[in-house]
């Protein structure tokens, strides 16, 4: 199968790569572009470990073909922290011990970023529904919910 040339932006950086039509965005992010922060769990859009923002919208990178990212803006977990340090969402996940094995964490943090950008003061129900597509088999979710609530409060004070 001949390869396709794709020009896109990942975390603000212009990026070019060659891929086959069958390669998904998570394949290319991890295997071609070495952005291994994005994890692949189920590969069928159920677990949310591969959550990224595609043109600002939360999607599963396992259900996006890499060729579809032509001309797009992709934000991964590597684009959440700034040069000054970790993003408040990341700080709060650490503070609240909202992770154990860590495989789901990049997806949760990207999904939380999308949530708080859209709903800066979400109630618990909104948080739980928004994050229903991110599965965690370690924490039982409560610590994650507390971390998200605390991050929302922190970001609201900063704004």
């Amino acid at each position, binding site marked *: *199968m001949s390869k396709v040339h794709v020009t896109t932006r990942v975390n603000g950086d212009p990026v070019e790569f060659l891929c086959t*039509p069958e390669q998904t965005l998570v394949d290319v992010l991890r295997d071609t572009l070495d952005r291994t922060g994005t994890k692949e769990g189920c590969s069928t859009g159920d677990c949310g470990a591969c*959550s990224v923002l595609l043109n600002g919208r939360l999607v599963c990178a396992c259900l996006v073909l890499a060729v579809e990212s032509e001309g797009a803006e992709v934000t991964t977990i590597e684009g959440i922290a700034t040069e000054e340090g970790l993003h408040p969402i990341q700080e709060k996940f650490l503070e609240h011990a909202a992770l154990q094995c860590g495989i789901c964490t990049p997806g949760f943090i990207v999904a939380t970023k999308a949530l708080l950008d859209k709903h800066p003061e979400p109630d618990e129900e909104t948080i739980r529904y928004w994050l229903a597509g991110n599965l965690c088999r370690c924490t039982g979710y409560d610590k994650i919910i507390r971390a998200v609530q605390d991050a929302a409060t922190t970001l609201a004070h900063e704004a």
Partner: protein
Amino acid sequence: MGSFAYVAPKSVAEVTGLLSEIAGSGSRAQIMAGGTDVLVQLKTVDRSARTLVDIKGLPETARLEIGESETYIGAAIPSAVLNENADLTALFPGLTEAADLIGSTQIQGRASIGGNLCNSSPAGDSIPALIANGAVCVIAGTGGERVLPVEDFVTGVGRNALADDEFLLGLKIPNPGPRTGDAYLRFIPRTEMDIAVAGCGVRLDLDEQGICTAARVGIGAVAPTALLVPKAAEALIGTAVDDAALAAAADACSEAASPISDKRGTVAFRRKIIGVLMKRAGAIARDRAAARS
């Protein structure tokens, strides 16, 4: 994943031309919008070779237009985009709630109701809500465009009325009148992220005295395809949509159902629950219609 080629045409003529060329060569084309069903199928149950034809880039499939008398929803618009549109959710709360039930936030960032319809699952949540709303498919083919009511579109499990050279451009839905309400409810054993065991969409019009003058009822996951249930609508028309009328409509839905037993529910359970959903969705549609004026 199965092996495939990928093309993203920029015009309707290019898509229909490609579809007919691929069909003529004896190979297989597959239309893709958000890909949340298509890519999962390619990774799991059906890995046979094909050409994926991505229709997201067409103006006709990306257009959302709320007109004077009807609303057009392009076939490839993600449900998250529909639910962020306050004008649309105010006009068709039942339909947009049905779209909001399909998958996670991530899935809704890509999945479209056009795709949900074309996937043609008996349990597709948007289908009964579209049927209740009197939605009509706008289909493009090499010979031009044609329209087809949603209740006639799905012809079997995973099958629909699209010919080899055709694809769904969008859906046209008559706008609600001054006292029109719609609702969609489904039953699932958990609160989120599941496939309907049964689903019921209702849209009805009331007159100034609160009497129902028109109604449409669509049911899903209780037959090989989602169904329009005219007898349920007849039970509501001419009534104040009171408990007796809702009970009669519920019986009509249970009667129209021809469900299967599977791990999500038995025949008897599905027959019963579709009636319960009819009653509850009917009451919501009635209250919305009354509150609108």
